[in-house]
């Protein structure tokens, strides 16, 4: 990353101190952005009487690590984590794989009706979830899936409009000469797909998978609609349920539960950060 292309270059040349100002502004911004999370962590480590102190102390006087043990004991944390992981993993595998296949059919292959169906696909991005909510509930009810995890991951195996769109944008940049050369060697479409498109677009596939993972991890409305039994709750729903039960008093436990819900996504992000940010940047040159 360099400042070469920045509109600030000439300003920095003339006033070297301006650079310091920009950094100061950024540090302030970052502090504001990160503060709520730090506050969450700080509160989660305070004993209850310290949370109810005015003015509040920035850091706990005594670090109450037990809060986490208590929280994990009070809410079936591992059960919730397991359910959430099942949904997130299956749905990100499902949507990445199926959306890539479909995006391939929309870019590499030429078949009658393709462009019409692609337009339709784009149009479905405008359909709000509430339109689908009621009839989908009926469909899952007929299937006997209410109260199970199925409604939360099975649909992702049938692709998603936004993901198809993103992957198509990326596939369009892959030069046509490559698959054509393989074609002459007698390779099948599946071989071309797996040997060239998949390896060449690893980072954008990572973006789609990560997006879906985070989406499923954060989703509240879906689990709220379909999960009826506490044993099948996800972390988000469990956290909401926990809050509605204990109400607004035991903030130290609530914050501990929130930290536990947030931590896995943040850790995952640090692992995929590079691929993710690269892929995201490259896919955003939208000329739709």
């Amino acid at each position, binding site marked *: 990353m360099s400042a070469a292309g920045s*509109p600030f270059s000439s300003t920095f040349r003339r006033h070297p101190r301006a650079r310091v100002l920009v950094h100061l502004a950024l540090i302030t911004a970052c502090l504001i952005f990160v503060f*709520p999370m730090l506050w969450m962590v700080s509160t989660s480590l305070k004993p209850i009487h310290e949370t109810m102190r005015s003015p509040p102390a920035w850091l706990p006087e005594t670090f109450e690590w037990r809060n986490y043990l208590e929280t994990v004991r009070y809410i079936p944390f591992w059960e919730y984590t397991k359910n959430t992981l099942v949904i997130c993993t299956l749905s990100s595998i499902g949507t990445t794989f199926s959306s890539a296949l479909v995006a391939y059919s929309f870019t590499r292959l030429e078949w009658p009706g393709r462009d*019409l169906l692609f337009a339709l696909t784009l149009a*479905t991005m405008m359909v709000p979830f509430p339109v689908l909510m009621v009839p989908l509930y009926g469909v899952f009810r007929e299937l006997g899936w209410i109260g199970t995890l199925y409604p939360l991951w099975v649909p992702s195996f049938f692709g998603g409009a936004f993901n198809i769109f993103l992957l198509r944008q990326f596939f369009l940049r892959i030069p046509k000469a490559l698959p054509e050369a393989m074609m002459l060697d007698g390779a099948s479409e599946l071989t071309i797909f797996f040997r060239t498109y998949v390896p060449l677009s690893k980072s954008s596939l990572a973006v789609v998978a990560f997006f879906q993972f985070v989406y499923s991890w*954060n989703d509240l409305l879906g689990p709220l609609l379909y999960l009826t039994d506490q044993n099948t709750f996800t972390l988000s729903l469990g956290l*909401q349920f926990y809050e509605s039960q204990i109400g607004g008093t035991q903030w130290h436990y609530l914050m501990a539960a929130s930290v536990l819900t947030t931590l896995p996504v943040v850790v995952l992000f640090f692992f995929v950060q590079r691929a993710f940010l690269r892929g995201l940047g490259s896919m*955003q040159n939208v000329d739709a």
Partner: protein
Amino acid sequence: MQSIVDAFNRSQDRIFVDYVSVSSIGQKTLIATAGGNPPDLAGVAANDVIDFADREALTPLDAFARGTPVRADRYLPIYWDMGVYRGVLYGVPSVPVVTGLHWNKRLFREAGLDPERPPRTIAELDAFAERLTVVENGAVQKVGFLPSEPSYFPFFWGYFFGAELWDGDARILLDSPENRRAFRWVQSYAKRHGVATLQRLSSSFGNLASSEDPFMAGKLAMTFQGIWLANYIERFSPGLEWGAAPFPSERAGDPPVAYLDSDMLVIPRGARHPREAFEFIAFLSQQAMTERLALGQRKNSPLRTVSDSFFREHRHPYIRMFQELAQSPGARAQPKLSVWKEYRDETRAMFQRIWLMQTTPEVALAEAQERLQNSWDRERRRLAAPPSQALKLAPVGLVSLLVLGVAGFAAVERRRARRLAGGRRPARANASLGRGLAFFSPWALGLLVFTAYPVMASLVYSFCEYSVLTTPRFIGLGNYAELLADGVFWRALTNTLVYVAFSLPLGLILAFFVAVMLDAAARGASIYRTLVFLPALTPVVASAMAWLWIFNAEYGVLNHILGTLSFGLIEPVPWLVDPRTALPSIILMSVWSVGHAVVVLLAAMQDVPRALYEAADIDGASLWHKLRHITLPLVSPVVYFNAIIGVIGALQVFTQPFVMTNGGPARATLTYTMRLYDSAFKFLRMGEASAMAWILFLIILGLTLVLVRIGRSRVHYTGA
């Protein structure tokens, strides 16, 4: 209850009852029933029985009840009647309640009144109230009586003046001479004390479940409360000297009027063991068991005959009075209207307007009467519409038409391609269609089953009365008409539009400037970027918790920071508690998670050719000019794309207000999707919810078209 369940489990060995106590039971039972997985037996509120029965969510009990002690003649008629809807038995009373006047004897004595003699007419009540009110230094310290306390029965006052709420058939009877007298009486209290005084006074009143409740704290001398008050007095104000009597009526000598309610046992439809569940109901219905349950909760008995031991062992000092009151010919329950929830909400709003002196009782009653009569007329038309199985197939038909249309279009396109190729079949054409469809097939299924069918089905349902459990009935534009006439719908829509109008532009502007600075900061940019992105990663429920805590009016850190930064000049803000600041608070929180837009914009900015800036430098352009005329136009496609996606997403905002405020206070943060979720899954009005969904869809289509139009003239595309 647990002890009765244990007794039942011991009494026989075929059936084992597992007792689970949950909050908002009615709600959960309904959802579980709709989901096809209900409990065998549930205890719900009396007015839920009507609501559920209306949506065919309950098992009729008449057949089970034959030959068991569950008989109408054993119960007090009003309680029994709560379980009967349109002549069918759906629920059996378990623990009933009855309400009456409670008075503070010490305050009576201090005011020079006989502490053993409660008022016997409304006029006497007013005179006593006047004497019991204590004003010191211009501030009301104690008040004799307030029709606004407690707030749960605003609809009931008319009964003490001889009014009715409904004629049992087609007419709503809210606007009657009796109700007008009653609400003039209500307003007379507001006039006597003044609205400002009353508001100040009531903000010092606490919950019923606390020692700050005005009656228990000795600030209110007389109150209209249920038999349950004794339990609270013992817990929160054990020293209180109090009495209970029937609440006085306008005319002396009329039979005492009381409000009756009850918990009801019901068997949801689709329960796996209805027979066994009813066996438990019959077991509980025995006099000994029913009385044991009432004794445990210190309530009255729903049965006609009451044993002597019941009165002897009962720990409520006024049980005989309450038991008699429940048998009075003047006893009343909530009307069994399927629009009762709406009726209650409407009378509550009407009461508020009268109480705050915003209008006269005559005007308020006439307006509420008109609205409720309209909605009841609509409901009756809706109930009269015949159910139709064909409506269930209609969406499938529409989807088939869509598929045929696409196939037809493809065929035409193909023929044209063939013609262009000179009549020959283009080589590989068939193969490519097969391959294309093969790769496309997962999405074909997704498109059909998870998108096209639901879209069509919700369109069809939006013209129907439909609760997953019943066959849809066609009612034309009924749902749409009802929504457009519904104040809550407009409130939810306005809230949502305000949210979109502020959170989206604020977010994009902030994201733009942060991205500009990140673009300029060579060193450390990736660390800054990660930190700015973190909030966007935080699960919405978790960040909602964090902000709930930050916004907390009492211990919240935000008020502390603002106070410190302004050297105490900024008064603590009641962020989420005050209807005026609640929605802005949620907008503020949403702006915090713009990390995603920042990252995307930054990537776009780094693609801006450096030469452009250099050329501008040579021309001596200012920093602002470069941002305005080079950076902004070149990243505008990204801004534009994010704006469209953002509008669609923000219009559906649900989680933050649902978790943080549940739409409150006073519906200030009720969003469109929350309202839709409530109608669909709280009230099982799936038809109405579908109509709401389609209105949202049309709004999104409209806004997207407008944005596309703006985009054509304003967005700068390079190359393409």
